[in-house]
């Protein structure tokens, strides 16, 4: 009887346990789907049957936390934590995290240390326990960064113990991402998703990883997570952030408010609202939100680091530095705060305090790749020379200073005078201009990580860019890049850094084009194709092209397209309206409305008018590049004179090139000229201009070749060989001034070849422009020529011609030191001494 009774009791108990498992799964499923209330109700009714189920207690506590009922959550966690079994440590962890959320750090740390003690003293810990220990270790890493490594290992152990539980993997991915180790983070999230394709938190982790790599997929992935769980607060917060980056503040606000509907005390959601209020300059709203946040958690430095981070992304570096400083005041262990403060100080040109704060950040969190890279860069600053040049501080690497200094200073001063007159504005000085011979260093200076695809950045009073030696010969035009970035200095200064990104970039590219023909980007077949395929964005959404490109070339296309907007505006309304709009941005609460208001056109009308302008400007080219379905140029793909379509650019160009290669110059010329007529605005290396120049040279028609090259570089100022060839042809005709102009333009592309400097010096000599001759001779010396004696002599000669006998004498001694029997140098030395003697005698 007793055994039967025991069996019945056991059966009943097991029956009860089995029902609870299924219900547990159902509650978890409801939670994952965001049906929090239903999950809470179900959990509540299950608890009524068995209030000692630790798993249920924890889950209910987590649901309460999800919906912002922190006291109720704490109660359940406390209850679960008192019960023996595998949920105890998780319950302690949950309680600790609640304490952290309320700013009760000491209470949190006590619990976290308890969890670690349990790890050290207990055996047979399961996956959930290991997850709890790993999470606790991660939190304690804020005080002891060595613990982060252990946290990674513990998460790995938890995953190994139970690969089916996604939580450890998600937490590991988040930790790696937090330490800027995106490659591994991405791998971890993908592994979790392989086993749990629709886990919303894993999808969110993936979205964050994609965002780190500037991928536009981040939005879609987040939307995917929200489709599964529309009430997932972290996903709503992340969407809010993405919208803020797109400067779509209404949409961002909507997302944050949706998050708060689910959890009214979600600090991160409140933080997003605070960021929006700041960016929209709604001080009253900002203060209201700030008070609410500090009421919930008086030590919540995360609000200020979020403000600092997003402010700096919106180029409000001064504000960012201020917010970061507040974060540190609230929480002296806010290593992120120190990092953000340091980075923004460097961007503002405050090099010493910036570096000091970065070092503090790194000491507290040595796994931050972003900070580590920047500190390594800062270590190399000793190799750079800082030159005070009036309004500028020019920072050049020691090995490039002698060569580049004069060119950079000259162009910078010219740009300043131009922009000062054009905008009637003087920005804060000095303006710091830094050129990096190593692109990886420039990349780190810009964003903290290597590999960014930019040529230059402007932080306001600081410009950083690739030196011409950072890339291959002919890869870019450093002169136009410097001009572009200096335009930004003015735009940012005039607007207190509140100019929309598309506006500033488009205007800066347009400024390049105004400065020199050929500067400022070119239209190319890819751009035309993008227009024909409907990929180009309307003006009203052009910002997206910069921040979240939807195809690889969209950023480059957006730069050029935006510059055309300003070409359109100035053609129709003049330049003054642009200056007025810039001034209006400074105090505007609705920047998107400023341009339509100034033009007296609403956004849709502006979009339509600009589109009409583009279509008219490129009418011929668009027709010549359009691929119509019913047309073909020969089924085999082989284009012949018979099959080439007369109004199709690629047919004409391709055939022209083929004929040129075959040596049929007469026929090639016809087709290449036709291609040029069809798309005259395109002057890339593969365009008709370059091919025709070569053709005419083959035919012994240098004048025709010259004409092609002139047209080419008037559009494309990046083709180094075209500039040199044009200079050569002009020189052969005796057009010294024009030849010199072509060579000077070439130096803005690549100044490291001695020959152009030598040729330029010769032309300038014939034009008696001795100061410039001296500049070129100095450049030649800086290039460390083999024949240094000759280089010193030539420089001495130029100095002598300028009337600087003292410098001439110095250089001539250097020449003769190397080559004592150098006849010309000997004669110059004697001549200088004679002149000095005569001058002394005259005195």
């Amino acid at each position, binding site marked *: 009887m007793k055994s039967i009774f025991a069996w019945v009791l056991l059966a009943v108990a097991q029956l009860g346990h089995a029902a609870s498992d299924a219900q547990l799964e159902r509650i978890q499923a409801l939670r994952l789907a965001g049906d929090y209330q239903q999950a809470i109700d179900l959990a509540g009714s299950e608890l009524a049957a068995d209030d000692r189920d630790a798993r249920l207690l924890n889950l209910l506590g987590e649901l309460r936390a999800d919906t912002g009922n922190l006291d109720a959550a704490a109660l359940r966690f406390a209850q679960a934590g008192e019960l023996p079994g595998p949920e105890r440590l998780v319950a302690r962890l949950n309680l600790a995290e609640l304490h952290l959320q309320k700013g009760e750090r000491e209470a949190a740390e006590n619990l976290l240390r308890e969890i670690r003690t349990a790890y050290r003293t207990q055996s047979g810990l399961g996956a959930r326990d290991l997850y709890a220990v790993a999470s606790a270790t991660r939190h304690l890493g804020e005080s002891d960064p060595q613990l982060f490594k252990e946290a990674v290992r513990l998460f790995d152990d938890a995953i190994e113990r139970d690969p089916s539980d996604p939580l450890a993997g998600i937490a590991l991915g988040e930790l790696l991402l937090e330490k800027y180790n995106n490659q591994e983070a991405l791998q971890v999230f993908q592994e979790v998703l392989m086993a749990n394709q629709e886990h919303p938190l894993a999808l969110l982790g993936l979205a964050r990883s994609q965002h780190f790599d500037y991928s536009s997929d981040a939005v879609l992935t987040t939307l995917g997570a929200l489709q599964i769980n529309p009430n997932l607060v972290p996903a709503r917060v992340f969407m809010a952030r993405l919208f803020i980056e797109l400067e779509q503040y209404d949409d961002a606000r909507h997302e944050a408010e949706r998050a708060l509907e689910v959890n009214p005390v979600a600090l991160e959601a409140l933080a997003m609202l605070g960021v929006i209020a700041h960016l929209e300059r709604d001080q009253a709203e900002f203060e209201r939100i700030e008070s609410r946040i500090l009421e919930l958690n008086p030590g919540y430095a995360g609000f200020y680091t979020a403000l600092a981070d997003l402010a700096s992304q919106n180029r409000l570096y001064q504000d960012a530095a201020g917010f970061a400083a507040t974060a540190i005041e609230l929480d002296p262990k806010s290593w992120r705060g120190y990092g953000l403060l340091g980075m923004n100080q460097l961007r503002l040109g405050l090099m010493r305090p910036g570096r000091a704060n970065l070092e503090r950040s790194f000491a507290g969190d040595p796994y931050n790749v972003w900070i580590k890279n920047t500190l390594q860069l800062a270590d190399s600053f000793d190799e750079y020379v800082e030159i005070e040049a009036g309004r500028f501080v020019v920072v050049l690497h020691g090995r490039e200073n002698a060569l580049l200094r004069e060119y950079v200073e000259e162009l910078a001063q010219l740009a300043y005078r131009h922009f000062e007159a054009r905008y009637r504005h003087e920005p804060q000085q000095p303006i710091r201009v830094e050129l990096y011979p190593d692109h990886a260093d420039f990349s780190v200076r810009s964003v903290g990580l290597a590999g960014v695809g930019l040529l230059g950045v402007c932080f306001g009073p600081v410009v950083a860019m690739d030196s011409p030696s950072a890339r291959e010969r002919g890869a870019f035009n450093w002169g136009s890049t410097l001009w572009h970035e200096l335009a930004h200095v003015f735009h940012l200064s005039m607007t207190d850094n509140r100019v929309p990104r598309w506006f500033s970039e488009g205007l800066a590219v347009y400024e390049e084009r105004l400065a020199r023909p050929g500067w400022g980007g070119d239209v190319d077949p890819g751009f035309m194709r993008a227009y024909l395929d409907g990929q180009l964005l309307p003006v009203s959404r052009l910002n997206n092209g910069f921040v979240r490109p939807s195809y690889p070339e969209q950023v480059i296309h957006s730069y050029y397209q935006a510059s055309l907007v300003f070409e359109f505006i100035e053609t129709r309304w003049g330049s003054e309206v642009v200056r007025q709009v810039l001034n209006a941005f400074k105090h505007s609460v609705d920047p998107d409305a400023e341009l339509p208001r100034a033009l007296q056109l609403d956004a849709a009308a502006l979009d339509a008018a600009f589109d009409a302008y583009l279509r008219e400007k490129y009418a011929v080219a668009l027709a010549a590049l359009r691929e119509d379905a019913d047309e073909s140029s020969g089924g085999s793909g082989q284009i012949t004179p018979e099959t080439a379509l007369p109004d199709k650019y690629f047919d004409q160009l391709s055939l022209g090139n083929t004929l040129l290669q075959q040596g049929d110059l007469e026929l090639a010329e016809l087709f290449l000229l036709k291609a040029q007529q069809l798309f005259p605005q395109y002057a890339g290396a593969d365009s008709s201009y370059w091919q025709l120049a070569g053709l005419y040279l083959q035919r012994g028609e240098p004048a025709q070749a010259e004409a092609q090259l002139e047209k080419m570089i008037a559009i494309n100022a990046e083709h180094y060989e075209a500039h040199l060839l044009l200079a050569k042809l002009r020189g052969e005709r005796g057009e010294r001034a024009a030849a010199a102009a072509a060579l000077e333009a070439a130096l803005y592309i690549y100044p490291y070849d001695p020959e152009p400097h030598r040729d330029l010096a010769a032309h300038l000599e014939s034009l008696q422009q001795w100061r410039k001759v001296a500049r070129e001779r100095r450049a030649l010396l800086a290039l460390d020529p*083999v024949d240094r*004696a000759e280089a010193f002599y030539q420089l001495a000669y130029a100095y002598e011609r300028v009337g600087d006998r003292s410098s001439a004498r110095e250089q001539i001694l250097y020449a003769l030191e190397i080559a004592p029997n*150098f006849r010309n*140098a000997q004669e110059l030395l004697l001549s200088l001494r004679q002149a000095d003697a005569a001058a002394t005698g005259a005195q």
Partner: protein
Amino acid sequence: MGVSALAQPRLRTALAMSLLLAWNAAAARHHLLIVSGIGGTDEFSQQFARRAGSLYQSGLDADIDPANIHLLSAQQVPQASGRTRAADKATLLRTIDEIGASAGTGDMVFIVLVGHGNPRGDGAVFNLPGPDISAAELAAKLAGFTGQTLVVVNTASASGPFVRALSGDNRVIITATSSGREYHATLFGEYFVAALADAGADRDKDQRISMLEAFDYARREVRREFDSEKRLLTEHALLDDNGDGVGSLEPGEFAADGEVANRTYLQQPRSLATGADAEMVAMLERKRDIEIAIGNLKKRRENMSSNVYYDELEVLLVDLALLSRKIRMLQ
């Protein structure tokens, strides 16, 4: 009775001439052996032929007796049409024997290898049609050149081991690479050959290109080309002239390697203008003294302040300039 007034100028001239003859007797004969090895492709074959032709012309321009210029080539060399022999190993060894037989004590023998090389064992070889020639084999063949200044320039890939093999007294050994592991086709040869024809390589403006100047020119231009293409340098040329078997990457006039190379020229020394009299000889000797003083001053530079150094240098340079001007006026 004294020497007649008419006889006196003759006596001065005779004295000067005897001094000149002594000078000329010291002027060595130069021998140039150019070996253009197997190209492998049309592109390389044309390249090597072009370099060999340029070297041949440089030899002629350096006033080397054409009979003392030997060109062995695996390709046609237009500049030396009719004077080119096969570049196989047997011919090479035989030619070296011929040079050895005709070279006198104090002569200079230049051997320039243009082509490909590759490592072999712990050494390297230079590629010829048929069997290649190793560094060790070449060293053995050149062992008998003890009375001459020997200059061997190997512009091939993987040529570095030739330094250790050929190093010795009174020898300048130049290789395009520092080791046998640098096996890519080199740029060094192109620029070394160009240096011999480019006045721009004449750093000290003495109207001659020394082996040091040619080496330095080539080394710098190779680096410039790699830098402009943002490529890592894959060849590091060496020069050894102190016989220690270790080449220098940056030899110099006052460095461990470079002193001998600095005074070794392809240019066949010429005799001085005839008719030079004692005054001219004295001026030339004075010129030589000033040049030596300048050299000595440069050696002491490290221990002097910059101002003092350049003040003293200027004094010497002015003297030299005035004297040179006078010499030119009298010539």
